[in-house]
Structure formats: C-alpha cells, structure tokens
C-alpha cells in the first residue's frame, strides 16, 4: 500500500521554503503553534506577514498578542475583504484576492531588504470540503508560487469545521505538517504539549535529574487551562522514578477541586508499579486509556 504520511516538523525546525499546515482543534492549540511561529520569527528579525481571514478585524488583536514584546513593525496584518458572493462573514473571500495580497506583501518585504520572511494565514474559509472554492491541493500549488522559494509559511485549518477530510488531503498533498515545539527535549526525555486531550506527552526516561523540567512543563499546561482533566500520555515513557510520581501526586493534589490528572497509555511495567504502590496512595491521579 502506498501511504504517504506528511512530514511532521516542530515550529523551530521549519526550513525556508516550507509551507506547512496546522490542522488545529482549538484556539489554545492554534495560539500555541502560531504564536511560537510568529514570536520566533520576530525574535530573529524576520518579516512576518499575517493574512487575516474574512473575520480578520477580530483576529488582529489576537495576532498582536502572539507577537509578544517584539518589534511590532516587523508584523504586517493583511486584511482580506469578504467577497460579496458568499453569505457569512467567515465563509467567503476571493481566493484570487488572497493570493494577490500575499504575492504583493512578499514582494514588498523582499524589496524592503528582508531576507527572512514568514507568512501565516488561517485558510479554513478557503480550503477543503466538496464545496470549497479551490481544493487544498490546488492551494498548495498556488501558494507555493505566491510565496516563493525562501519564505516559511504556516497555513492553518480548523479541523473541527473542515472535518477529517482535511487531514487526508494534507496527506495526499505530501504537505509538511507543523507540530508544537517540545516543551523540553534532550537525549533522555521529550515533553510535548497535547491539545486533544489537553495535557502533556512524555517520551523517554524521567528521573531526578529532570524533575525541574517536569515541574515547569506541568506548570505551563496547568496555567493555560481551567479544564477539569489534564491528561498525560505516557506511551513513550520507559522509566519513571518515585520522585516524579510524587511530583504528579503533588500537582494532582493542588488542583483536586478541579479534576484529576489522568495517566494515559501506560506501559504494563509502569502500570504494575502504580498498582504495587496502590492507587490509594496516589490521590488525584487516575488510570486513563490503555496502552
């Protein structure tokens, strides 16, 4: 069977010439990924062009927030005028106008002497679905031409509204799919944010020398979420020390009024360890989905 999985690349590993797609499942995920993309670009002195959707006016302050404390002059938000043919404010804009606007902005940035250019746009309105004005594959081709060979682009699609078909199309288009930067990564341990469900995924080995990074990652995910449950995907975790279990129990205890810390996809060894200790010793921690 000839299955082409898209290339998955964290924000920080995107390369000039990549036009990567983000099929986000919620605003938190979008802000996390696009915010890093914009913030990294501005921090490195790149020109960042944000093509606002037809609902762009509302989007503008949000994007400004993502820019953080960097030089705001480097960020250009290009508004898109909704096309008259379509009804909803969200539903229609002229694809040709969008592509023209992008081409124009890239040309202007190049003329202004910017060597590094980043482009991002929420194209949920424009792609996919049987009634989409232009199919995603066609967008891939046209965007490539508009952007040129050296800019980096992140195009966003709300996968809640454009269903699973988007992912299939991205796969078929051999597109680059952008993923969040890991919260932490070294030779022994990788910690990533997850968004469906909200939480962290831990991969590798977790011992006392990495308790502080676990603490920090947990603090990040907890501060950004008032949700009831926080999930930890432990499928890739080969070892956890007792001190880390203590940290998890501590975190769970401090947010006991809001909901448990759910441990998903534990290896049989990890699960045995938890059962030997006894779930009664681990208030606020709950066994989640199986391996």
């Amino acid at each position, binding site marked *: 069977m000839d299955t082409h999985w898209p290339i998955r690349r964290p924000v920080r590993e995107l390369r000039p010439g990549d036009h990567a797609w983000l099929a986000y499942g919620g605003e938190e995920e979008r802000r996390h990924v696009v915010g890093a993309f914009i913030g990294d670009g501005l921090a490195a002195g790149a020109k960042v062009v944000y093509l606002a959707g037809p609902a762009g006016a509302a989007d503008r302050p949000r994007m400004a927030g993502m820019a953080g404390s960097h030089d705001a002059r480097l960020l250009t938000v290009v508004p898109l005028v909704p096309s008259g043919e379509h009804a909803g404010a969200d539903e229609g804009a002229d694809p040709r106008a969008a592509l023209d606007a992008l081409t124009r902005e890239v040309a202007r940035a190049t003329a202004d002497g910017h060597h590094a250019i980043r482009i991002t746009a929420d194209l949920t309105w424009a792609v996919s679905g049987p009634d989409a004005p232009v199919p995603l594959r066609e967008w891939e081709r046209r965007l490539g031409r508009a952007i040129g060979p050296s800019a980096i682009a992140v195009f966003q699609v709300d996968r809640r509204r454009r269903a699973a078909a988007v992912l299939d199309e991205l796969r078929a288009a051999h597109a680059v799919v952008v993923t969040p930067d890991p919260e932490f990564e070294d030779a022994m341990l990788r910690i990533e944010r997850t968004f469906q469900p909200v939480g962290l995924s831990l991969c590798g080995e977790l*011992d006392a*020398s990495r308790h502080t990074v676990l603490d920090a990652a947990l603090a990040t995910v907890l501060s950004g979420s008032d949700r009831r449950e926080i999930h930890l995907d432990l499928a890739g975790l080969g*070892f956890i*020390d007792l*001190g880390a279990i203590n940290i998890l*129990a501590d975190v769970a*205890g401090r947010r006991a009024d809001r909901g448990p810390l759910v441990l998903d996809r534990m290896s049989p060894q990890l699960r045995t360890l938890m059962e030997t200790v006894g779930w009664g*010793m681990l208030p606020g921690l709950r066994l989640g989905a199986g391996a």
Partner: protein
Amino acid sequence: MKLEHRAFEYAGTGAFLASVEPFLRSGLEAGEAVVAVVREPNLGALRDHLGSDGASIEFWPAEEFYLHPVRTLKDYQRIVASHAPRRVCALAEPVWQGWTPRQLLEWNRYESLINVVFEGSGARALCPYDRRAAPAHVLDQARRTHPLFLRDGDTRWNADFVDPVTFGTGCDRQRRFPPPRDADYFAIEDADLHRLRAFVAGRAAAHGLDRRAAQNLVTAANEVAANALRHGTPPMGLWTWPDGPDLICEIGDHGLWRPSPLTGFIPPESALDRGFGLWTVRLLVDLMEVRAGWNGTFVRMHMRK
C-alpha cells in the same frame, strides 16, 4: 482508640476453634468489620463451624495473604481504612513455614510493626500460633511482639513484650557480610542515573529475573541511588552479586545516616508523605536491609527469581 494486639498458642483444630470463636463472635456482636486470615485446614474448619453466622466475615487464605511483610502491612492498612470509622476485628494467622531464617526475622519484625502501624486504629487483632507446627523460636518471638496474650480464655498483659523500636534495632543488629570480592561494581559519579539503570537491568536479566521483578529492582535501585546523591557523601557506588536464587544489589556511600529502625516500614498516608520513597523501595524488592554507621550508609536489596 488503642490497638488490641494479642496472641495465643494452640495445639489442634479443636483448641483453635475454641479460642477464636468467642473473639469473632464478639466482633460480630459489636458491629465491627470482621476479617479472618487463616491457614488451611483451620480456615475450612472455621467456616464450617460458624456456618451462616460467619456470612459477614471476610475470609482470606493465609497462604495468599502473607507473601511479603511490607505488602501485607499495606493490605491490612487498606482493610482498616476501607472500613473506617468501623473498628476492624482481625483473626490473623501468619505463615511460619517455608521461609529462610532471614525471611522469618522479617515476619517477626512485621508482628512487632503491627503495634506501630495500627496503634491508634482501634483495631482488635488475635494472632494464633500453632504450638505443634511453628518453630520454637517463632513462639519465643511472638512473646516479644504481642503486648497481650490470651490464655485459658483470659487476656493478660504480656511482660515479655518489647517495644517495636527496640525490637527493630535487634533485627538490624544481625551480622552481615560485605559484598563478595567478585561482585560487579558501578561507581555513582553522575546525577544522570540512566547508565546505572541500564547496569542493574542488565544484571537482572542475566540473573533470570522476570520483567516485572527486573523493573521493580531498577526502580528501587534508582531511588536509593538518587537518595545517596542527594544526602550521601562520595565516593558512592553500587554492587551486585548473585546469592543463590537472589540477586543482591547494594548501594553505599560514605555519609553518616542514623535511620530509625522503623524507617520505610510504616506505610505513608499518600505519595506526598516523606518516606514514600523508601517505603516503596521496601514494597518493590523482596527484602531491603539498611546498615548505617561511621563507615558509611549501605542499603542492600534482595530480589528472588
């Protein structure tokens, strides 16, 4: 409420039933949660004897319940907690056959620790000792670990009882040998314990420990090594060697530590308590021994294949 921890000696099933029946009935009448952990053939005889009167009693075969002293303490703690605020009335007959002398010592210590772990629980425990089957020194130790003794239907204060701290100190005073000269050695010099875990996992596999035992030993060794790094004094290292069916793993450093003889035996309230780490180490391995003195601190873990 204070714990009532009493023992009695018996010879034969008839004598066994005559002593335990009034105890269990008193528990049922008082509305207590009644638990009977008993060896066969006494277990079957007791069930038959009580008939439907014993319907609300939680029966356990002793052979399944008494496998590992620290885990058994945890299991009793869970039983007591699950019935709170009801008092627990427990008929508790440990298994005294088939252990090595070292294991027997730990079961004696277990009987002594009952007095500490359940001190304020209000539980009532009756421990039968089979005079025909239990070795003589087991009967001697029972007199040192039970503050109360039942004789001819009367419960009396036992003058031979030794407080658990003193008893534990005595257990730890046993002579121990240093690691053999050909033991494998791993120097602990790095806060990153990945290599140490790989070393222990390799020795565990070579010794023929199953996956679960190997993983438990790796987790335990990692914890003890992390403690040594945090509190100990270099040089520090880990030795492993086989001792019959056991794989032994010892971690030593040159720091001075004066643990209580109860250290790591008392189940914590939760993973948040101080002492959760060492208690879990005791839970994970078959036996953990601590030797601490002026020449350093040594924690020896045994894992049987």
